[in-house]
């Protein structure tokens, strides 16, 4: 029985069919003529090379310096605009020296409604309350005033779409 088992397995193994030589050669030629597979590493290299090329092109025309100065300007401009300390003004000359309010979070009093009398009447005036500087929201982009979450959401959406497409592509390959 042992010999019979060995014979059957050997017969099955040695009795396997082989393709015709012409057919096999034609298929080999077709596979070889299609060229080697593109490696994912090659794609990464191509992406890096293109990025490097863009950086070099920008650097050679001064683009990096221009971008850097623009960025620093964009960062400084809001500070110049909104952190303004008015030391001399008509109001400062006419009214009593500015004394900061006791409560820093006091409700805003519009400057157009002074509690004292008209100028030159000699009456005592209430402490000057400077106009509130417009609040700079840290979640806004400079110049455009676009909310920061908009480009962030856009970027996340693009990354999510890419991941979904990649996953679907892999599933399709797996179900070949």
């Amino acid at each position, binding site marked *: 029985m042992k*010999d*019979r*088992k060995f*014979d*059957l*397995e050997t*017969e*099955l*193994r040695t*009795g*396997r*069919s*082989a*393709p*015709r*030589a012409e*057919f*096999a050669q034609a*298929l*080999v030629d*077709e*596979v*070889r003529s*299609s060229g*080697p*597979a*593109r*490696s*994912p*590493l090659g794609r*990464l290299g191509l992406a890096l090379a293109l990025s490097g090329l863009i950086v070099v092109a920008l650097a050679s025309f001064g683009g990096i310096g221009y971008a850097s100065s623009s960025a620093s300007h964009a960062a400084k401009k809001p500070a110049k605009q909104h952190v303004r300390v008015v030391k001399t003004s008509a109001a400062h000359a006419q009214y009593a020296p500015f004394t900061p309010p006791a409560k820093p979070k006091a409700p805003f009093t519009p400057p157009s409604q002074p509690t004292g009398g008209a100028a030159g009447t000699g009456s005592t005036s209430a402490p000057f309350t400077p106009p509130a500087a417009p609040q700079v929201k840290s979640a806004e982009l400079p110049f455009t005033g676009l909310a920061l979450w908009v480009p962030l959401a856009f970027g996340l959406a693009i990354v999510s779409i890419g991941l979904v497409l990649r996953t679907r*592509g*892999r599933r399709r*390959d797996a179900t*070949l």
Partner: protein
Amino acid sequence: MRSLFASDPLANPEPLIRRVYAFAAYRLGDGPDAEDVTSEVFERALRYRDSYDRSKGEPVAWLLGIARSCTSAALAARANNPATVHDSPEIGTPGFEDDSVRRLSLAPALAQLAERDQELVALRFGADLTAAQMAQILVSKTNTVEVALHRALARLRSILESEGEHEQSAADPRKPSARAGSPEHA
């Protein structure tokens, strides 16, 4: 990260073609059908060559996964349209010579096995896969595959033995129950 360094799965196509063809021939019979399936497998492999991931298996396992799908489609088409079934590819087809009477008796015996058993035999003895590789393709455990293959071979052996008895009884009507020697080598 390993997939970044994946090598070309079709860098050495000759042995892969032989193994895929042998698998297809075990399932469909030696001849044009097996050649069609082999061509289709490599056509698909070329199309999806870039998506091959070595971490998921060897190139032969990847190709045989494709071959299983193509073979199932070919068998379904054959079942739907029996008129297109090629008549006995071993006979009269140039280049497909049969070496022995024994091999001729194996094909009908294999055809009597269940689909699952035929596939196991084709993967093991046609594509020359190990039990672990078969388990990977069939999404099963290695032990399960080994046991299933053992049972399939036992069934094949019993079919061959019963056929041998029939042939002997036909040759010598006076001894209907004679079982001399190995029935496989009848």
